Each structure stands twice: as C-alpha cells, then as structure tokens.
C-alpha cells in the first residue's frame, strides 16, 4: 500500500528501540536465537493440530480441516491503553443494547430524527418479527466483538461492531495456552493479565440472562451448532466444553410443553439459555426460512413467551449493519448522553450535500464504498485508482450519492511477526470480546489480534491468508 514510511509500529519506535509496553518482551527476544524461535513456531503448529484447533473449508474433501496460522510474537497493550479501550467499548455495548431495545419497541431514535427511517424499514437485518418482543433479562446482544484498528500512539478507531455472532474467542484462549506452554519464562517475568476466565464468565453471563420462570433448579445452558461440518465447529465444541454446557444440534431439540427441550438418554429436558451459533434466518423454519433444517420449529413462539433466552437475540444484526455504522456516534450520544469515547473511522455520507462536495474534491485520497455492497465490490480506492477510474466513479457517485459512503485510507498500525529473516512488520487489527448480562458487563483483557501475513497487506481475514497472535494486556 506504500504507507511503510508513515505507519505506526506498535513494537519498535526506532531502530532497536522498543515502545514501553514491549520493552520487557523485546529484551527477552534479543537474547533468543532465531532458529530456536522458528522451531517453537513449528511446535505451536503441531500443538494446534493435536488439539484440533482447525476450521473447515467447504467443498474440499481432502484437506477440509485447516489451521489458522499462528505467529509467536505477541501483540502487547499497555494497562493505560487498555483502560481507555475498555471504557469506550463498554459505552458502545450499552448503547447498542439500548438501541436494539428502542428499535424493536418505541423507535424513539427515529421519532427524534437522529437516524433516517428508511435505513431501518428497508433493511434486511431488521426483523419485524422481533417488534415488541421482550428478551428475558432485557439483553439483546450478550456477546459482542468490537473490531478496532490503530493508526498512532493514541489513535484507536472502531472499524465495525459484531453484534450477531462474533467468532474467534477460542483462538484468543488457545493462543494464550500455547504461549504459556512454549514460553513460561515470559509469563513469570512480565505481568500479563490472564484471559482464561472467559468461559466461566460466559457461563455466568448466560445463566444470569436465563428466564426467571425456569422449571430447572439452576439454568440449563446449551450451545446450538449447525454441526461438525460448520467452519467454526471447533469453537462451538470448545466453548460448550469449557463452560460445561451441552453442545446441541437442531435434531437434538424440540418444543415441548412450551419449552425448548433437548433429547437426553432419559427423555426430553428443558433448556433455559441457548447460545446459538446458527444465523437468524435458520433459527426457526416456522418464522424465518422455511427450508431450514438447522433450526427448531416453534422456538420463536417459546422465545416470544419469554420461556427461553436466545443469545444473541434474533435481529441484533441491525446494530452492526454497514448502513448504520456511520450513525454509531449519534446512537451512543442519544442513549448514553455522552460523546463516544472510541471514534468511528471518519465517514462521509454522500447523501449529505456538504459531505458529497468534500468527497468529490478528495476522491484520489478516499475509499468510497457502496452502502449495501460487500466483499470489496463497487468500491473505489482513491490512492491506487487511475484518473480514468476516478472519473468514471465520479459519474456514478453524482448520479446516486445516497448509495455511497467515503472513508479516508487508514494507515493501520503494524506489529512484527517472526519470519525466516527475523522480525518483520505486518498490519493488525483487534477484536476484544464483551459479555453482557442484565446486571453487568465483563470484558476479557485483550482479545483476538488478527494479522495480515503478507507484506504490506491490510487483509487480516483468516479466509484470505490472515493469521492470529496472542494479545497481551499488561497489568499496572
């Protein structure tokens, strides 16, 4: 991308000079020999294979289980930096839940004119079936992943919210376990805050969200998976296992006496909380997609009656929809009365005349995206586009400005990875995981750091050659 001169490296402030959070690690690293570390990398891979941390690739029979590459150089965040992120994310998650409640009830935010109505009414992510439904405990999105990017010492931006079914938390946990096994000395030397409590926190958070009228002595929690061929099956099994919850598939469940029940060796037993890793559309063939075999017929009736908790609630996708992203700062202000602590990536909505004027003047510097586009289609990347391409795009933009938003091209921070030649900077993002229950919000210090393994690449997705790193938040 040609930003190498200006990009912010989180480890090295200059030649051989580590930024403060990395000092301890860097000193250790300089005393290690490269060959030994490369060997550790290979060991890590064998470890992941043995415990089966793989993801499935559809339609490739032979190699249908792959590893997400793991880099052994940690991503380190200072206590002070994390404290700010934590406050910002907590604020955001509160606002998202308040927004979801509002949008499926009185829609005050629309009445107040803070969000244009058509963004909701004409949006596939908005589920009319959820209007007026009250989720047990009042929580809509119990598990949230907030994707962050960094561009400088104090510059973090929210790239997107994942309010439906954020995945990747199992990698956060296994990456740490692997690092502790391979480099125990680092963890005795440095104060790295643990992440291992996540499954217990998740369990507690889900139990606390259970319906009050349960027939069970204590809440029965189950994880609903599409099955062993799903690409994230490992994570579903992993979380159920670590929480001590049952891992169920649709054919293990049925609706019985107004409850969702699972088939056990002694008959059907009611469930209170279903952590479902099945998309809204497949959840209930009677309410949504009638072709679905991954869902439970009638489960939405049970839900509407308040007899089961679904985590996350159906319809939460409206909160992480692209079209609404640029309104997040307004949403936060509307529901919390505070300014957003963590900024969005600045976004110009071309539907607004002033914004359009600015965008038209700066096309060669901006990324312009279609509001409803995905996967990088219908997009202009100004800095790398030809004059001809820009001119052609300008025409489309002038014809239908409301169809577009524009963002600056961010110079994402880098963290080094270990290559054959030693350390080499690569772009990263960060997905911290947040748990919401009726009484509390829990955040695990750190999250999942995804890293683009190819030099200069900004694509961190595992489906496109991205890898992961262990993420360390240092104690005070």
């Amino acid at each position: 991308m040609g930003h190498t001169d200006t990009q912010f490296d989180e480890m090295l402030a200059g030649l051989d000079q580590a930024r403060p959070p990395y000092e301890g690690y860097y000193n250790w690293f300089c005393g290690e020999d490269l060959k030994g570390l490369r060997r550790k990398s290979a060991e890590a891979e064998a470890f992941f294979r043995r415990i089966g941390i793989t993801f499935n690739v559809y339609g490739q029979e032979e190699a249908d289980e792959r590893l997400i590459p793991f880099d052994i150089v940690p991503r380190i965040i200072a206590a002070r930096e994390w404290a700010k992120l934590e406050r910002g994310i907590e604020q955001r998650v509160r606002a998202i839940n308040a927004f979801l409640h509002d949008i499926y009830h009185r829609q005050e935010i629309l009445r107040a004119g803070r969000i244009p109505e058509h963004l909701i009414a004409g949006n596939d992510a908005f589920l009319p079936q959820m209007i007026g439904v009250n989720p047990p405990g009042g929580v809509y999105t119990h598990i949230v992943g907030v994707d962050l990017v960094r561009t400088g010492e104090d510059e973090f931006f929210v790239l997107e919210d994942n309010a439906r079914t954020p995945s990747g938390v199992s990698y956060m946990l296994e990456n740490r376990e692997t690092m502790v096994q391979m480099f125990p000395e680092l963890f005795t030397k440095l104060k790295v805050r643990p992440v291992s409590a996540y499954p217990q926190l998740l369990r507690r958070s889900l139990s606390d969200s259970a319906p009050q009228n349960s027939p069970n002595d204590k809440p029965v929690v189950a994880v609903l998976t599409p099955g062993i061929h799903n690409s994230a099956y490992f994570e579903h099994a992993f979380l159920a296992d670590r929480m001590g919850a049952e891992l169920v598939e649709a054919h293990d469940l049925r609706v019985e006496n107004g409850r969702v029940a699972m088939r056990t060796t002694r008959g059907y037993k009611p469930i209170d909380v279903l952590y479902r890793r099945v998309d809204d559309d497949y959840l209930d063939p009677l309410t949504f997609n009638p072709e679905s075999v991954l869902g439970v017929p009638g489960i939405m009736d049970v839900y509407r009656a308040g007899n089961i908790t679904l985590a996350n609630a159906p319809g939460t996708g409206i909160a992480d929809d692209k079209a609404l992203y640029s309104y997040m700062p307004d949403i936060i202000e509307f529901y919390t009365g505070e300014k957003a602590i963590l900024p969005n990536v600045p976004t110009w909505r071309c539907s607004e005349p002033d914004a359009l004027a600015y965008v038209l003047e700066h096309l060669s510097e901006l990324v312009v995206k279609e509001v409803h586009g995905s996967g990088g289609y219908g997009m202009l990347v100004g800095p790398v586009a030809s004059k001809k391409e820009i001119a052609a795009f300008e025409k489309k933009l002038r014809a239908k400005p409301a169809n577009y938003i524009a963002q600056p091209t961010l110079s994402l921070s880098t963290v080094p990875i270990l290559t054959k030649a030693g350390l080499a900077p690569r772009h990263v993002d960060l997905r911290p995981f947040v748990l919401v229950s009726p009484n509390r919000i829990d955040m695990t210090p750190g999250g999942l750091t995804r890293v683009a393994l190819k030099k200069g690449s900004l694509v961190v997705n595992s489906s496109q050659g991205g890898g992961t790193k262990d993420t360390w938040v240092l104690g005070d």
Partner: protein
Amino acid sequence: MTLGKNAGGLYWMFRYLERAENTARLLEAGWYIALTHANNGTNEWESILTTAGMNEAYLEKHESFEAASAINFLLRDKSNSSSVMSAIEAARSNARMVRTALSGEVWEAVNECWMELKAALARPVTERNLHETLMMVRNRTSVVRGALHGTMLRNDIYAFSRLGTFLERADNTARILDVKYYVLLPSASFVGSSIDNVQWEVILRSVSAERSYHWLNGGDLTPQGIAEFLILDKRMPRSLAFCCTKISQYLGLLEEEYGQRQESQIQAERICARVSSASVEAIFDEGLHEFLAEFLADAARLSGLIETDFKFYG
C-alpha cells in the same frame, strides 16, 4: 444424564476403535500364516476377509486373493467402510461430535491416532512396513483406551463408551469362531494334522490369545480347549463370557445412575446367563455354529435395544 446423541456417538466411537483394532489383529494373524506357508496351499487371505465380513466387497474390486491387495483393502481402502482407516475416520468423526463428553486427553489421543494413521496410510502399505503399521494401530488405539481409563469419570458417559467396546469385541470374537468353526469340529477326519494346528493357531492369534492359551494349557492345543477359552473363560478379555459380564456390568451402572431398569438390561442378562450356563460339551453337542449364530443375532438385538432405550436417535 447426557444427550442421546452423545451416548450414541460415544458408543459408536468405541465400537469403531475396537473394530479397527480387531481388523489389525486379524490381518496380523493372516500375514503370519501366509509368511510361514503353513496353510498348505489354502488361501488364508480369503478366510481373513470372510472373517472380517469383507469378502464380497473385496471381490467386487479384485479378482484374486493377493497379499498386497488384501492388505491394502483391509487397511486403507476408502470404499471399504470397515477398513482400518475408515473405522478410525468414523471413530474420530464421532469423537468430534461428542467432543464435550470426552476428556481433553481422550480427544487428543483419538485425534492423534487419526492424524498419525492418516499419514501412515496415505500410500500403499508394503509387506516391509506392514508390521510397523499394524503396531501403530495397536499402540494408538491403546493410548485412547489408556486415556479413557485414566481420565474419564465413571458415569453414564463411561458406560456407553465401554458398551460400544464390548459389544464390538463380542461380535468380533464370535465371528472369528464362526468362520472357523469347521476346523474346530471333532468329526473332521484330519484331526491332529498340521493343517489343524495351523488353523487353530490362527484363531488364537487373531484374538491375541496364543500366549495366554499356551500358558494356561501347557501347549495342549485342542478344539474343545480353544472353544472353551474363547467362549467361556471369564479371565480371557476377548471371550464371549468376559464381554457379556462387562456389558451387564455397564448396563447395571446405567440402571444405578438413571434409577430405571430397561429392556436392554434384561436382554443382556439373558445372553449372559446363556453363555455362563453352557458347557463346552453341550455347545459342541448342540452345534457350535448354531450356538454362535444365535449369539450374534442376540448381540445385534441387544445393540438395537440399547439404541432405543437410551434415545441415541431422535
């Protein structure tokens, strides 16, 4: 109490592991006979494939019983759903499904077993590396068993795992005896010939019992002795009597856990009583084949009852 699906998954996971191990044993016995040319021209591979229940499937792909094709068919043929590799695949797939019911060590052991065998069986196995490969099957499946014993709670989950093991094992031992029953019949005119001795030896070898048999019988190899050992001896871990006792024991554990007596338990006790009240003389009088055929049918019925009693399927 566990999910019906988990109970079924555990049961089949351990049936498949046992099956893989048994096929490997059978193969080892057959190979030994073939190597020593002790079979006097009769084709041992045909008999091995028959015992493994794969004869017809084999003949669909091959015209004659050659060592190389038989070995690879038994070990690694994907189209053969009972080959060692297919059984290990099925065991591991069931293990993935019931991942939450297994201890981490059991899961890792079965996953490693699968990884190692997949690599070892990726290419045709030659006679030169056959022994090593078979040892790997035995070692890897033993590690799974060891992890099960060492790390799993002795609850219903354990009971379903063990039920799978012993039903498969009983079925296997009965089948080996049934395929070879004619060589055990006292009426045969060639009693005492070297052919007999070899055939008897194969039977013992394919259940890894030749040492213990000789140890108990001081080298006195007789059809009655072998039949008694493999059917009635409760000390012999692959005998029908031993397997029956274990099956009853684990169904009893389930009764205790669930506070309910079920059809499968009644059936298991019936089979148990039939085996333990039999004498080897009576079995031979009534007909060894008839006895074994009835046992196999009973065992299949029992497996079906376990499936329905404990709601394996919706």
